């Protein structure tokens, strides 16, 4: 005569060097967090739960429930660079003349509130910038 009733959960991340993190199988409910850095390579993530019940001594009523939920978030190592890249610098460089052009337009009393007229003035070759501005 024997009996077994169990509910277990488990998780693990494996890489070429072996286990990176893992839990269980265990019957403890709770929350866990694992963080770290993954270098280039191949990995396997396993997350699961199992429930098992056996009895030959009846009559009996049994139940076992195991559930899990997880999130796995990746962020590039180093994160966003605070240093403007060459493409960003180029955009800044083209934006400044446009701004000064608009400011000059305001100073000389040109009808800058009319965007169509302003753009037209840039396409007739009389202005140095081809960038339109929102006024």
């Amino acid at each position, binding site marked *: 005569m024997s009996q077994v009733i169990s509910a277990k959960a488990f998780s693990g991340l494996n890489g070429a060097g072996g286990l990176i993190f893992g839990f269980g199988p265990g019957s403890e409910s709770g929350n866990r967090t694992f963080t770290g850095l993954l270098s280039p390579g191949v990995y*396997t993530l396993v997350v699961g*739960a199992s429930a098992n019940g056996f009895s030959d001594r009846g*009559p009996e009523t049994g139940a076992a429930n195991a559930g899990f939920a997880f999130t796995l978030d990746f962020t590039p190592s180093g994160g966003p660079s605070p240093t403007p890249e060459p493409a960003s610098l180029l955009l800044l460089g083209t934006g400044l003349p446009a701004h000064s052009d608009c400011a000059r337009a305001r100073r000389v009393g040109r009808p800058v509130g009319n965007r169509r007229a302003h753009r037209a003035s840039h396409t007739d070759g009389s202005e140095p910038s081809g960038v339109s501005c929102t006024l």
Partner: protein
Amino acid sequence: MRSVATLAAGTRSGASTATLSSSYAADPLRWFGAGAADISFTTPDTANYFADSRFTVGFEVNSPVNYNFNESFTTSSSLVRR
């Protein structure tokens, strides 16, 4: 993903279920998964139930990345002699 539920001959009444859901298509840098394995039975003599629910995901990292893995487990079990 794999979910398995079995019961053995000789049981009188009961159920075993395994469910899974997942999502990572919307954002390949953010994965989500959930699953459950449940059994229940009432027997006058012999019971043998099993349920298993699991994700097995293989993936390749091409440049260094930081990871943050959060998991939540809930388990419970009971066996009552009638």
